[in-house]
């Protein structure tokens, strides 16, 4: 018995379902517990005969399914109601009825996938292709039409002769000894394996490169990069002047750009009167536009302290007596028309915004030259507001 150390189990074949049920009951009653029954299809009553409790796999489905469902519901709430609110026809951001179909589908999906994975990996402990039973005559018989039982050497009551005689007394067609397979060893740094790894690495990186850098730039996968249309400033063979951009008809007035009648005149008669009422909103807008367009040269508080540090002619302070005495219309005219080194801003700033800037300049001038009476006024306002 040279190979007796390699013995895995003693197995027996039975030819009817009744006999195998009886055999399983007997083996259980004898006190063996490291045994198993192999049948080509599930037999009714075998779980009871072997003394097995009912399966726990349903709990995996229950917990994972419930987890999946609640997770996706929270996720949809977070994406649509928190992270990026999509406003669709005044509907609520968290619309529970509309979330039900996906919640249901994901519950089923997570439930099924987790059941499958748990079943294969945890309950069955598969894949297990080097189990001693594989490729034995025993396995080939029980997979067709016979019913087998085996007791492994791990069982504390294992005794080869006793088990064989037990099986024979139960009416076994044949008994069989199952041996452990020879251990096969694979070296990690086998040349073939290393070459295989290099091949896989080269294949993966090469195909990724081709996919992302080449394939995605050929028609029709080119992200609509090439379209049959003119882009701005492009040459056109169709039009006589070879320009794809067409010039508007003479005298066309763009929307919101009514021509300014005093364009180019240094000192127009000051007929322009301020059409705005300096409300808080208007002054806020004026401040914003002032800081964007005027402050680089005139400074944040209009003191002529340019941020450009002499790289560009410094704008004058707007707190000089001359400018304080200017009418609103004159300030508006200078913004619109430009003056000395200052360019015209009529294309960048709309008419309304220009008046708002004028109002804001007035605010700055008043703040810079505040009198004691103004402070009294501010204090009075603060107390009435209860601050």
């Amino acid at each position, binding site marked *: 018995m040279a190979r007796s150390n390699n013995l895995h189990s003693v197995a027996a074949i039975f030819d009817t379902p009744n006999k195998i049920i009886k055999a399983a009951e007997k083996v259980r009653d004898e006190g063996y517990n490291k045994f198993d029954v192999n049948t080509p299809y599930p037999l009714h009553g075998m779980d009871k005969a072997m003394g097995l409790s009912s399966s726990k796999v349903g709990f995996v489905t229950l917990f994972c399914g419930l987890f999946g469902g609640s997770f996706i519901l929270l996720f949809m709430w977070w994406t649509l109601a928190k*992270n990026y609110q999509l406003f669709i026809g005044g509907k609520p951001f968290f619309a529970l009825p509309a979330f039900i179909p996906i919640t249901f589908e994901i519950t*089923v999906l997570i439930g099924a996938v987790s059941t499958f994975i748990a079943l294969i990996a945890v309950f069955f402990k598969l894949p297990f292709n080097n189990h001693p039973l594989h490729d034995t005559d025993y396995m080939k018989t029980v997979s067709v039409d016979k019913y087998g039982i085996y007791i492994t050497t791990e069982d504390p009551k294992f005794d080869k002769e006793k088990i064989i005689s037990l099986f024979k007394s139960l009416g076994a067609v044949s008994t069989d000894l199952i041996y452990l397979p020879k251990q096969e060893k694979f070296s990690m740094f086998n040349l073939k394996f290393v070459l295989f790894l290099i091949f896989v690495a080269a294949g993966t990186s090469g195909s990724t490169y081709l996919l992302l850098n080449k394939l995605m730039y050929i028609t029709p996968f080119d992200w609509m990069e090439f379209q049959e249309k003119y882009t701005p400033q492009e040459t056109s063979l169709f039009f006589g002047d070879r320009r794809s951009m067409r010039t508007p008809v003479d005298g066309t007035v763009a929307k919101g750009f009514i021509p300014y009648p005093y364009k180019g005149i240094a000192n127009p008669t000051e007929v322009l009167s301020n059409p705005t009422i300096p409300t808080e909103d208007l002054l806020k807008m004026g401040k914003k536009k002032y800081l964007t367009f005027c402050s680089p040269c005139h400074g944040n508080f209009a003191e002529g302290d340019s941020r450009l540090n002499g790289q560009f002619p410094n704008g004058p302070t707007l707190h000089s007596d001359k400018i304080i005495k200017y009418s609103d219309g004159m300030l508006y005219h200078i913004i619109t028309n430009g003056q000395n080194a200052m360019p015209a801003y009529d294309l960048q700033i709309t008419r309304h915004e220009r008046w708002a800037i004028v109002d804001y300049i007035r605010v700055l001038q008043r703040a810079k030259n505040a009198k004691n009476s103004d402070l009294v006024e501010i204090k009075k306002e603060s107390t009435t507001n209860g601050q």
Partner: protein
Amino acid sequence: MSLDYSKDMVQFTKEPKLVELDNLISKPMDTNPSRKYFIALAFTSSLMFLGFLCIGYTFYFGIGAWGNNQTIAWGFGITNFVFWVGIAHAGTLISAILYLLRQRWRNAIARFAEAMTIFAVICAGLFPIIHTGRPWLAGYLIPYPNSMNLWPNFISPLDWDVFAVSTYFTVSLLFWYLGLVPDFAILRDRAKDRIKKLIYTFFSLGWRHSNRHWRDYEKAYMVFAGLATPLVLSVHTVVSFDFAAAILPGWHSTIFPPYFVAGAIFSGFAMVVTALVVMRKVFDMENIITLNHLEKMNKIILLTGSMVGYAYLMEAFISWYSGVPTEQYVAVNRAFGNYAWAYWTTVSCNVFFPQFFWFKKVRRSIPLMFIVVLLVNVGMWFERYVIIVSSLHRDFLPSSWTYFTPSVIDFGILIGSFGLFFTLVLIFTRTMPVIAMSEIKGIVEGAQPSHDGGAH
């Protein structure tokens, strides 16, 4: 000559031995395919490649290659999608719902029907993706954190579709594979050829027919059936929401979910019968898939066909009863307008012809039932065509009223989807057991222990 319709043509002389069942079912995998098989495969794969060519043409030139236009934005693409999703419903119904109802006759046809489900979902999934025009951007349908902070619109029925169909495909595939694992183990132990053995060993995962495994396996099978049952009903419900949640007259209707589910089971069973009639003959499986099986399926076709007929009547009734002139107009226009030919094809194929199944002789006659189920397949395709095209072609703006004319590419892709489906079916019949061997063995006479004999 008088035929006895109450009995099958061929019978086992006595109860089959388990090993005979194994031999019979694995014969297609053990023997070399005949010339007829290769001719059939060449034919179906040619159709499939024709379809792929048309799809490639569509990708290059855009959706303008189809007959779709501004008014009828959903033409063949969505018709085919709904048609194939419907076909896909029979498999899971047979494998899950009939399992829970303890209908043991399902064991003989479950595997084949499940395979058809998976192949039909593959065909179905193709259409919405190619209808987008740029299917390589389909990744945006999956919610993943991206730099644009862009999420799918989870409250859109079209997004529900994505989740429903992909869940259905995944769960059907797992359910199918779970049933295949013991059968792969049988084939592994039978295999003489080294490569065949390697492949079956890989897919059988080292299954040992252990009873400690069967215990969890049976429980998991039950759990899967329990999950798949509401799922199969939900999928076509969600597909019907694509229509019912729109405000278009002819689509905006609460009857759509049950109506679509009944139609799906109806068309799915028709397709399964169509394929089974051919398959059982080709592989000599008349003894396993008997006339009794086909008759039971024909009864389900009769039932669901009548439900679909009821839905047609209800649609017309509701549009009259609603008092909404546009609804009434759409109902009348559907039956007597430009698409009357398609509508009456639908009604006759789906409602009239299946009524012949009231007669036992028709239910049990292979040629007659084959004609009826083929007509049902045609009728169910036209049903979706009528729903989509006849509702869309009369827009709210009479100036955009038009008539849908499919292009050659449209037909090419439709034919290609049939080619894809039958190519997959043909490959399946030669590589995997078309009947669940371990299930069918368990219900043979004498396969289960008798209660007085051994156990007690």
